[in-house]
């Protein structure tokens, strides 16, 4: 019984308008023919109808006429069932029976019921005489087709994922939106103007946000509630201003808006989510300064250096108003001062599960060099140095430094392995400082600095990509403008990489408008491709990349399969035929290099 009730629940509201009749139907059959038919026995027992109802996401398509006709009755029935469902007291049961019998006396209701009974018998009976006709009620499709398990494209969890598509009306964007829709994602589309033409082009349940990637203020609303972004907008012309606004600044603005939104979320859920940051140091008391040491040095190791020695000094102290301040001056040419500490992470945490550092700092807006020392703890001589330059602003700001932006000091060293990091150094050097424009009167000496440190945290890494950017490979652009287009695109790519978001950058060959999934694709890194690709295949890659961990933090070129030219066939190119049976993207991308 319980499983029967549960089974009913699963199909739920779908059947609520037919269930009643089918129960009666069973009993009526029982009455008139016991010879040929064996029937179910649980017909007229008051069924405990649970309150759980799978509410279809959208109103069930079509059939609304019927459902309005029935809805009154359905509601009544539900209400009585609710009363009944609680604990099945006798009194309540009696009430129910009274209600039902009152309903039963109504001649209209009787007529309708008998018609339903007949319809049901007839449906089943005549169903036998069919070959492959499926009599599916429109409600059922909600469970089976739109959200249910029996749907080819639906991705588990897609219903909880909101994807912002930028450039939703572009050649790729249109297909991306459709693909997301049939997979069950919630989709937001950023459009510049909600013209009727544009609205008609997008599926009805796509949430349309009006905004412009060139205008940061409008992007706040766009990223609200989004989990992922697919950026397939491109400048409509090759005018430099357009290129800059859409392909470069647009990506930058959107990354920033998205990151701001993520940070806001992380603050709300502080410490609760796996996405929360790891505190490396928090400078909130004098004792928190323990372990940090101030050092001085010069790049010129020889005697000549002394000639330029103008003197330098630096100190790290905890001031009365509760700030940890690293300040000083470097007048010596080629000199630097640095603040360094051996990291001691909480037990069980290793930095390889993090993908970068975020520093909350204030001061007078100098730029600094972050240096990470990585190597086996037991043998300091094997440590290797990695550096990344950060710039700060006057006043407080947060600086994100992904581990991927650290470069080895010795060019031959392998890329940074965050697992091995043991020492963090912040270095100030007077070289390459840019003056800050605050008040022109105060004379700035770029050789002095003041850095107020609030905290240093590690950014958690993610499994998936957050931002898919469709760039271009440069093929198929008119040669005279190729330089400018590529410059803007590359600048956009760079700002995405620097943002610290998990990214995937797809650089397709010239786009062709033909159905996707027909030809094998080649994934490559290094600007060697020569073929075109269909828009649908690019869209497919974008959508697949959303949940593919091997797509995170990668840039790659993609085009149709081709036979490599003589002399170039040495490169290993990976071709994959997109198909239902295989997920071609993972094997294709797993051989490609990360952080590209």
């Amino acid at each position: 019984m319980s499983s029967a009730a549960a089974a009913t629940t699963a199909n739920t509201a779908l059947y609520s308008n037919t269930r009643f009749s089918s129960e009666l139907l069973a009993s009526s059959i029982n009455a008139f023919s016991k010879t040929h038919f064996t029937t179910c026995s649980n017909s007229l027992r008051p069924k405990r109808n649970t309150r759980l109802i799978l509410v279809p996401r959208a109103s069930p398509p079509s059939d609304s006429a019927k459902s309005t006709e029935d809805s009154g009755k359905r509601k009544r029935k539900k209400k009585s069932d609710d009363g009944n469902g609680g604990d099945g007291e006798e009194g309540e049961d009696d009430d129910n029976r009274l209600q039902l019998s009152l309903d039963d006396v109504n001649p209209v209701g009787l007529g309708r019921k008998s018609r339903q009974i007949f319809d049901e018998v007839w449906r089943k009976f005549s169903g036998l005489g069919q070959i492959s006709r499926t009599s599916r009620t429109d409600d059922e499709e909600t469970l089976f087709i739109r959200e249910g398990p029996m749907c080819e494209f639906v991705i588990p969890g897609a219903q909880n994922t909101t994807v912002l598509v930028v450039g939703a009306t572009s050649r790729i964007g249109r297909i991306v939106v459709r693909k997301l829709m049939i997979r069950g994602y919630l989709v937001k589309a950023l459009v510049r103007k909600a013209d009727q033409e544009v609205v008609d082009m997008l599926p009805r349940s796509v949430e349309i946000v009006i905004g412009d990637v060139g205008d940061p203020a409008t992007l706040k609303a766009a990223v609200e509630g989004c989990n992922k972004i697919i950026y397939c907008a491109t400048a409509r012309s090759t005018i430099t201003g357009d290129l800059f606004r859409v392909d470069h600044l647009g990506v930058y603005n959107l990354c920033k808006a998205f990151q701001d939104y993520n940070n806001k979320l992380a603050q709300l859920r502080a410490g609760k989510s796996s996405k929360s940051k790891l505190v490396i140091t928090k400078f909130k008391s004098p004792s928190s300064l323990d372990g940090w040491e101030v050092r001085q040095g010069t790049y010129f190791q020889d005697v000549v250096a002394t000639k330029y020695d103008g003197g330098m000094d630096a100190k790290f102290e905890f001031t009365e108003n509760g700030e940890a301040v690293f300040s000083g001056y470097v007048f010596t040419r080629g000199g630097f001062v640095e603040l360094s500490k051996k990291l001691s992470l909480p037990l069980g945490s290793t930095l390889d599960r993090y993908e970068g550092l975020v520093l909350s700092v204030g001061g007078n807006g100098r730029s600094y060099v972050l240096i990470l020392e990585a190597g086996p703890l037991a043998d300091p001589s094997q440590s290797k140095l990695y550096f990344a330059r950060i710039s700060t602003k006057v006043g407080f700001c947060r600086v994100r430094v992904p581990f991927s932006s650290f470069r080895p000091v010795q060019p031959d060293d392998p890329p940074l392995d965050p697992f091995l990091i043991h020492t963090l150094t912040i270095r100030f050097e007077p070289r390459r400082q840019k003056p800050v424009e605050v008040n022109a009167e105060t004379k700035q000496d770029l050789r002095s600095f003041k850095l107020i440190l609030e905290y240093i945290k590690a950014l958690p890494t993610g499994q998936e990509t957050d931002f898919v950017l469709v760039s271009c490979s440069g093929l198929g652009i008119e040669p005279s403008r190729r330089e400018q287009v590529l410059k803007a695109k590359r600048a956009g790519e760079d700002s995405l990489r620097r943002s610290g978001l998990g990214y995937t950058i797809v650089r397709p060959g010239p786009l062709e408008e033909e159905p996707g999934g027909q030809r094998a694709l080649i994934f490559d890194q290094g600007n060697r491709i020569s073929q075109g690709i269909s828009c649908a295949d690019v869209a497919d890659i974008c959508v697949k990349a959303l949940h593919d961990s091997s797509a995170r933090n990668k840039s790659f070129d993609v085009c149709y399969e081709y036979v490599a030219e003589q002399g170039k066939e040495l490169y290993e190119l990976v071709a994959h035929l997109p198909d239902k049976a295989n997920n071609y993207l993972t094997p294709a991308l797993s051989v490609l290099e990360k952080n590209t």
Partner: protein
Amino acid sequence: MALLNPNLNLRLPLTAPSQSQQQLSWRCNVAVAPTNLGTRLGFGSPLSTCFRVRCNAAAQAVNVAVGSGTPVRSTNILVVGATGTLGRQIVRRALDEGYDVRCLVRPRPAPADFLRDWGATVVNADLSKPETIPATLVGVHTVIDCATGRPEEPIKTVDWEGKVALIQCAKAMGIQKYVFYSIHNCDKHPEVPLMEIKYCTEKFLRDSGINHITIRLCGFMQGLIGQYAVPILEEKSVWGTDAPTRIAYMDTQDIARLTFIALRNEKMNGKLLTFAGPRAWTTQEVITLCERLAGQDANVTTVPVSILRFTRQLTRFFEWTNDVADRLAFSEVLTSDTVFSVPMGETYNLLGVDSKDIVTLEKYLQDYFTNILKKLKDLKAQSKQTDIYF
């Protein structure tokens, strides 16, 4: 009407003025006298007149200048019958492969919103009203026709007259490919009206000279869910027959996939393909499989085929139950131990498909039951929680 009025010239209201001089003279010669083709349309009771129908699509009359003007992109397709079991899978597949999909849907109070949600364009037209058809075909490259009349309406309105009008219209408007779904063995069972109509349509399509692919189908796996799987889970009675007929059920998603492969293959033009599932099943076998996967016994109500046949015979005696008789007509097929299946090896080779990628019924039902049982478990867990809180 094409059937009942002999020598009817169906005139299509064409919008383009250049085409208006050319009268379409597609003739469906309907004669009471027996003809050589001799497909017997058994509408009506045995006592009423039996028509012999010859499909004669006069192809020479129609050579509309195709090719002038804006070329139509090959990704523009029109799906007829898009709300059906097969149709919706066709639409999804097409959208996923990057086609621009237009769906011909009958006007109704609540339009098929799910198609719009997926990103298809919905146009309203009714096959039984030929004047509504031409506008929907503007700018379409390929028509995929998976429409079949609803069970409750007279079978020939949509399935015959509507299809004839659609094919004529497609030809007149220069549609470059027409995909038609038929039923397997439809040539062998002229006593079943639906199958006979499908067979006639196949011939009509062939004679029309339009670039086409005909695909004959056996049975849909999706149909088994409502018929057997759901009733078993709900512990309701399952109705089955004791017929020995075997049907090679196929997943509609596979059908859609193969269709598009065939559609893009120029070698398939004008071909008659039959799609069948990997194995043919009897009703009893399907029920047993469902029982095993659901882990519970079913209350099987076995209706002997003889009863179905008897009901059909009975209903055929009355004019007003003729439609009923038509719907039961398949019982004639059931009594024979026909096998609805064909070896697919050659088709797979032709299309370049791996037979491993075709879903078997065991796999399909297993997926269904695993998913649904998991969902039920979740719901139960939830219901316990609600018991605590409320």
